């Protein structure tokens, strides 16, 4: 799936102008980075409210397919800069983690 298709389907704001094919093997929802590190897997979509630069470090480490920041949280400039450098798509949603997760489930991602 193209990252912008995902953004369109979930009504997300794309914070990075990159065109990328993303693989989606699953979804992980979590805000405590140490737990996310041990539980999320490669090619997962990660839904979180965390926005600081450590998020990009965890995403890179795990090979996360993309990050969805929920609850309309403001994402720091250095986080976006790092996302650009690493080529990891990052989106923003006004909805809650649960609402976004439900939409992904309805799209057939289990």
């Amino acid at each position: 799936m193209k990252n912008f298709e995902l953004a369109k389907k979930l009504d997300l704001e794309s914070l990075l102008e990159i065109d990328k094919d993303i693989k989606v093997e699953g979804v992980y929802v979590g805000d405590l980075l140490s737990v996310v590190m041990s539980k999320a897997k490669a090619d997962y979509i990660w839904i979180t409210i965390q926005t600081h630069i450590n998020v990009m470090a965890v995403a890179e480490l795990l090979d996360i397919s993309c990050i969805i920041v929920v609850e309309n949280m403001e994402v720091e400039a250095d986080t976006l800069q790092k996302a650009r450098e690493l080529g990891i798509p990052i989106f923003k949603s006004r909805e809650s983690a649960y609402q976004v997760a439900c939409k992904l489930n309805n799209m057939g991602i289990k």
Partner: protein
Amino acid sequence: MKELSMHILDIAMNSVKAEAKLIEITVEDSIKNNSIKITIKDDGKGMSKEILENVANPFYTTRTTRKVGLGLSMLKEASERCNGYLKINSQLGVGTIVESFFERNNIDRAPLGNIADTILVIVNSLKNCNLIYNHVVDDNSFTISTQQLKEILGEVVISDSNVVMWIKEYVNENINDLYKN
């Protein structure tokens, strides 16, 4: 809370409620020692031994209503999650010292957040009370004191929008400089 500055704001509000005349906040950010220590000291009413013993227990309430919010419980949890601690010293009629410690490079350590905005929110809520804010990064430090500001300002009130803008820029510039060295 997403940022340490939110914790600082919350604890400082306890000091305001405790009718402190002086609140002193010190953030010691040590890259060398891999630690962040936040100390909030006030000369407010202080807490009784009973309240102090239960202050970090989120289910503790006094017979009427809670005297303090959940802020200390949350700060305790946040610091302990980062191999740190929360220490509270308080004496009735003397004041309270809250000290929290974080392992700096812990992956769950929240970022400091916006210190200038936090200082401004605290300053805005002060009535007959002064604030001293110290920020230490290894060997360098920065201090801002509302007492000194008021002396310089004279007739001009600290809540004047030009003063507020100036404080914000002054704090941001000085704290950023501490990290450049």
